[in-house]
Every structure is written in C-alpha cells, then in structure tokens.
C-alpha cells in the first residue's frame, strides 16, 4: 500500500510521456463515465508550463470531473493523463501541486492559522518553514487580522481566501483553481487576479476553472473550450480575441458599390444610412479596407474596430444552448 501511485491512476503510454515533456498537463482520450452517463467523453489537453490556462465550458461540460481526474480524486474510465511529468494521481508529485476546490470548506473549529499549519504539515513542511510561511500567506490573502478566528465565523469570501492560501503553501509548480472568485467581492476578485499573475511571474502554471469569462479574459494566457466533455478548441487568448473583428465605419458618400467592394475582405457587410458595419476575419485587412474606401471618394469620419469579448467568442464556439 505504500506504492507511490495509488491504484486509481494508470501508467501512461510512452507516446504520452514523451509528448508531455515540457508540459504541465497532458491528457489523451481521457474519459469518465458515471453509471452509464458520460461526464467526460474524450479530453485531449496540453497545458504548457508557466502559463495561466483557462478551462471554459458551459455547466455540465465536464470541467470539474476533468479537474478531479487530473488531481487523482477520480479514476478515468479510459484514457491517460500526465501531470508535471508523472501519471495523474501520483502521490509524491502532489508536493508540487496546489488545489483550491470549489466552495472550499474545512473543519470549522480550526482557526485560519491552524488550518494553514495543518495543511502545511500534510505537505511535509517543517515547523520553521511554516512559522515563516503562514503569516506571509495570511498577509497575502488579507486575513492577517483574522489569523486566530475560527472558520465557523468566516464569510464565504473569507473561506475562499483561506482556501487559496492553503493552495499556495508549498510554492506549487502547478495550481488548480476551481472557481476561485466565487463568493468574492470586487476587491477580493482583484486580489485573486493579482495573486494568480504573481504565481505566473514566479514560474508556476495555473489551471483556472471559472464561469466568470471577464476574469478569464483579464487573467489567462490560453483557454480551452470544453463541451460535452471534449476540448473543442484551445487557443491563445490574445490571438483568439484579435482574429474576428467587427468594424464600424461612419462616412459621407458611402455607396452600394463601395459596400460590395469591401466584401473581398469581410464576411458580412451592412450599409445603413451613413454607416457601414463590417465583420472581418483578420485585423491585417483593416488598412486596405480604409484605403479602398478613401480612394473611391468616401469621406471617413470614424473607423472603429471593435474587439469581440470573450463572452461573444465563447457563445460563438460553444454555442448558446448551454451545452445541454
């Protein structure tokens, strides 16, 4: 029973082990079936080290189950997963992993400082290290004044903060955050955002599972869109948001011929009064469109590319049926 890897994790194939080199997380065909119901169909995921990686999908898309499989809390029905170069569920590698569960809770009779000391000891940290680390983390999450307060007297937001602190105790290389900002007020959300960014600067990888797309948009380097337990798309966030652009053009002398002419760059064109609305696939076409209009005599007063929000991209990719 002392084996390093508990029975529920399997040894990944050599192919996956090779492809996992340099990745914080690599999965292939990861699948979970509960009582005949498919929770995760076939998850293929590659999370590079040192990035903040967003895990996006509608309710019931299998995000939390996927997270549980990566953390060794649930056994995959099929497929394989590597975490920090070791099979998911490996016990020693957990020294390098931090995890904030959704709705963090623990024995309510513990004080905030006691909770951190207990989890630190479970990580195998020495008493002297904890003496330094516990006040530091309480300060980081803004709970220094509440160090001696029992968890039963904590608000939901305070529980999330102390939960985040316990996930950072061991200076983890990989941090799983499941809805870290739920229950937090705007100041709390900002604090969490700053902490996540600081972790990236430290060189850690963060897997962020969040419903709050605005949070993901501000924080993440890369996102994976999950639907029906499959990764539909994994993209770098900047390129994803830059790609599809809507442009509003307000100009005098706009004609139907001009509108027809810009169709070579735009997927949709709409001319109404003195306003032209274009949807272009690449921002690189914007100077050419402007030159085209000016050359043909349009007097342009306004030429405004509008960035699509992540929410719009999310609905476009995942669909607005909620994945059901």
């Amino acid at each position: 029973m002392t084996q390093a890897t508990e029975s529920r994790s399997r040894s990944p194939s050599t192919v996956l082990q090779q492809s996992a080199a340099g990745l914080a997380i690599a999965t292939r065909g990861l699948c979970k079936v509960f009582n005949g119901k498919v929770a995760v169909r076939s998850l293929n995921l590659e999370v590079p080290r040192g990035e903040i990686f967003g895990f996006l999908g509608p309710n019931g898309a299998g995000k939390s189950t996927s997270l549980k499989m990566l953390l060794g809390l649930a056994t995959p029905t099929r497929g394989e997963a590597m975490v920090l170069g070791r099979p998911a569920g490996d016990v020693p590698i957990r020294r390098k992993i931090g995890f904030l569960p959704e709705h963090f809770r623990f024995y309510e009779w513990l004080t905030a400082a006691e909770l951190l000391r207990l989890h630190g000891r479970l990580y195998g940290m020495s008493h002297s290290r904890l003496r330094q680390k516990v006040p530091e983390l309480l300060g980081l999450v803004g709970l220094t004044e509440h160090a001696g307060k029992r968890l039963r007297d904590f608000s939901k937001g305070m529980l999330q903060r102390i939960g985040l602190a316990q996930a950072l105790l061991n200076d983890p290389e990989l941090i799983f955050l499941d809805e870290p900002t739920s229950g937090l007020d705007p100041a709390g959300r900002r604090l969490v955002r700053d902490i996540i960014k600081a972790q990236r600067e430290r060189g850690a990888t963060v897997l962020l599972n969040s419903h709050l797309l605005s949070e993901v948009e501000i924080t993440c380097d890369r996102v994976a869109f999950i639907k029906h337990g499959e990764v539909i798309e994994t993209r770098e966030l900047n390129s994803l948001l830059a790609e599809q652009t809507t442009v509003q053009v307000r100009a005098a002398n706009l004609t139907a011929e001009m509108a027809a002419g810009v169709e070579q760059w735009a997927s949709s064109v709409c001319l109404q009064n003195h306003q032209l609305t274009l949807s272009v696939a690449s921002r690189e076409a914007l100077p050419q469109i402007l030159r085209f209009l000016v050359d043909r005599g349009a007097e342009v007063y306004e030429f405004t590319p509008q960035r699509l929000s992540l929410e719009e991209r999310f609905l476009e990719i995942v669909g607005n049926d909620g994945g059901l």
Partner: protein
Amino acid sequence: MGVWIMAGVTFREAARKKILWMALAAGLAFLALFGTGLHYQMKDLAAGRVRPILLKQIPGAMLMVGLYAIDLLTVVMTVLVSVDTLSGEIASGTIQAVATKPVPRWQIVLGKWLGFAAMMSAYLALLVGGINAITYTMAHVTARQVPQGFALMWLESALLLSITFFFGTHYSTLTNGVLALGLVGLAFLGGWIEQIGAATNTTSAVNVGIVASIIMPSEALWRRAANDMQSPLANALNFSPFSSASLPSSTMIVYAGVYTALALLFAIRRFRRRDL
C-alpha cells in the same frame, strides 16, 4: 507521518463534537446515579438486613449492570461520533483538500481510525475506571479481571469503528448509521436467542445465535467480557445479560479481532479506489 497528522486532527475533531461531551456528561451522571444507588444499598447491607452471602454479590451485580450500561453507551457513541467522518466529508467535499495532499489515501483512513480509537479508549477507560473506583471505595469490590474485560469492551468499540468506516466508504451517513446500529441489534437479538437456546437445550437456537455472532460478533465480546469480570457465583446463575449459558469461545474472540482488522482493511481498499 500522514497517519499521525490525521490521527491528531481526528482526535481533536472527535473531542469537539457536542455529542461526545453529552455522552460524557451522560456517563458521569450515570456514575453519580450508580454511586447514589450503591450508597443506599450498602447502608442496607451494613444494617444487616441482607444475608451475609449476598454482601459481596449485590455490589458485584450492581457493578455488572453498570458495566453493561457503559458497554452499550460506548458502542452507540462509537457509531455516532464516527458515522459521518468519511461519508460526510466525501459528500461535503471537505476530504478533497486532504486527499490532494502528498498523503496516500490509506494513511487518511488509518489516521482517522486511530484518532477515533484513541478517543473511544479514553472514554471507555474513564467510565470503566470510574465505576470500579466507586464500587471499590464504597464496597471494596471491583470487577474480577478488569484488564481482560476492558480489552474485550475496547475490541467491541474498535469493531464498531471499523464497521462504521467500512459502511462510510460505501454509503451515505444515514445509511451507514442504520446499518451499523442494525448489526448491533442483530447481534443483541442473536445473543439472547443463543442463551435461551442453551438454557433450554435447543441446539438450533444456539446455532442461530452463533450465526448471528459470525455476522456481527459484538454481543459475543460483551458476553465474554462479562464472564471475565463477574464473580464465578454470578456466572453460575446462567441466565442474565451478564452470564452465559453458552459462553463465546476464544476462537470467536480471535474471529472478532480478525473481523475488526478486515473491516478496516476493506474500508481502506474501498476508499483508495473510489472517486472523491
């Protein structure tokens, strides 16, 4: 290391449960009641209204009644204190923060078991020690073989703990409690059927009792503990909750020990394999 951390936090968790303190208060109230009853009984004995042959037997019998109550209290407390430690923490998700730490799952279960076992040992020792101290002070009587009796009662508590852990890794808290206490009831009933069968020489009834003890050996442990603790004269009375017309064999005691270890092992095995 993980085992001792979990044992420590579980001991503290158990110590903070109101139910334990209520049970301790109930136990102390019971000891006070017992002491008062014994006091008046001894007054009567001193006044010479009782035959001399009963001088030691009456406080001895009262002591056995007290130990029987302690045994029942400990069994029920063992189940109630530990019933939600695994199923409850799995259902609430509390276990996730621990199960993702670099501690193998078997250490979590074993540590929790040790924490509760330590708490129940202290509880049992306090009550068994307390009642013997009272009878010794008032009547110069103690149970015959206190260490053996205590060990058997402890094993009964440990058995219930393992069973509660086993069910706790399979079922919800409520189902777990019903099943564990249901088994205690089954053993109790089986024990009486066996005694009545032995007293009336009905082999089939004795066999029914033995089967019940095989399914759940808790009552057999108490019968054996009672036999070790009370006077040979009281044992000869044959028909009471404390004497045995059909005395559980040493094999049955070994069986109960193996049962306890196996129930814990299967609880660990199930906890290691299940999703949390």
